[in-house]
């Protein structure tokens, strides 16, 4: 192991995490969550065509590799006149992906809330929308924290795929340092360790969040 190289590469790789991986993750997760909530609501709307659209979307996203989705958006779309920069392409592909996976998590969470909660909300005078927003979604959020945390942690790792469409994130920085030096093993191990540390921190955060939400566990 070349320790000097470890120290020299750690700075730029960590910087790649801070300016690439982390913002890419946060942006894609937030957008993806919005898509997921929309798709979950469409799925349970009871309106056949809305539900079918959402089912189709979820099926395509979950049934195709993310790498292929990225290529379609970044390399394919220009052929029909839609040319996007690497960053927007990556954010779109990653959030569509999160949307597909998280939609099923959120849908299951909403359906897990007992019918009595909807009824008590109606009894109190709430519309269905109010009941959803004030009563059901907050409880569904609690239920979906563990699975959504897993989606989030997977997303951190999946952002490395954006390196193939030239987004300057953690892994692309590592590739750029590794190529001229020839020290692939050292540099890629450094990159792996940085991913691992990020995920450890996130897993710790997940634990604390779940404990906090346990206050009102039924």
């Amino acid at each position, binding site marked *: 192991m070349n320790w000097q190289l470890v120290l020299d590469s750690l700075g730029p790789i960590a910087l790649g995490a801070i300016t690439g991986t982390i913002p890419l993750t946060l942006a894609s997760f937030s957008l993806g969550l919005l898509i997921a909530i929309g798709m979950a609501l469409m799925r349970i709307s009871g309106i056949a065509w809305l539900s079918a659209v959402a089912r189709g979307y979820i099926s395509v996203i979950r049934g195709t590799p993310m790498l292929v989705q990225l290529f379609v958006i970044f390399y394919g779309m220009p052929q029909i006149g839609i040319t996007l920069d690497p960053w927007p392409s990556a954010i779109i592909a990653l959030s569509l992906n999160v949307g597909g996976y998280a939609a099923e998590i959120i849908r299951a969470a909403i359906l897990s809330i007992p019918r009595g*909660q909807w009824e008590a909300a109606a*009894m*109190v*005078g709430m519309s269905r929308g109010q009941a959803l927003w004030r009563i059901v979604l907050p*409880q569904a959020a609690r239920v979906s924290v563990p699975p959504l945390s897993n989606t989030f942690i997977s997303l951190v790792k999946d952002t490395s795929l954006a390196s193939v469409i030239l987004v300057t994130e953690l892994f692309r920085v590592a590739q750029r340092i590794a190529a001229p030096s020839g020290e692939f093993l050292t540099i890629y191990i450094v990159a792996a360790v940085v991913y691992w540390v990020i995920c450890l921190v996130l897993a710790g955060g997940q634990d604390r969040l779940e404990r906090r939400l346990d206050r*009102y566990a*039924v």
Partner: protein
Amino acid sequence: MPSEHTDAAADGLLLSARGLHKSFGENHVLRGVDLDIAPGTVHALIGPSGSGKTTVLRSLNGLETPDAGSLRIGDLAIDFARPPGRRERAALHRASAMVFQQHHLFPHLTVLGNVTIGPVRVQGRDRDEATADALALLDRVGLREKADAYPSSLSGGQQQRVGIVRALALAPSMLLFDEPTSSLDPELVGEVLAVMTELAADGWTMAVVTHELGFAREVADEVSFFDEGVVVERGAPAQLFGDPRHERTKRFLQRLQGPFGG
């Protein structure tokens, strides 16, 4: 106490239901139910499990829609020949408030949040005023110091008392109770019945589905005995319990009171 728009109509009744029918698929659950409740009285609904008591109560609150029949509460009149619209259902929710068998408190809200969410978020009342009223009501049922607790930290009896306060805070014209004590441990039943007895004494109009025959005898002004989707017999408790006219009522009371019961 009971809000003012409870003026009785010409017939002197606060609530009057006629010919309620309801089917769930093939299952004809309500087969023409009539119910009359005068303002300020307590009406007990008794009868075997599956006889349609809960379905009637839910219909009164707009949680269930009968297929036929009509209902009047205060000055709100609904004919179920035409399915009620959103507005009519909202008016039904507003006219009465329900205490559920399994309390159905909102677990993510504190006790105070459970009580004020309706008045503040639905009725648009001032938050400080609604909070003051909620605390006064909680005080009455001995739960003021639990205002900031979450429902999961309360005993079953306390949860059900919060359920009652949540209903009261909506300022309905009448209260509906669906077996409010039947999922409680026996030693917790008394505290809930005590609150209900006080509310009756305060003049609340109440419809109470119950298996607590002692409560029905002591507190109810009138009792309806349900069986297979109809009211088989109704009367004052002394008459219905002491001298039931129908064979089905007699058999039910004997079964419930058991070989050694009074």
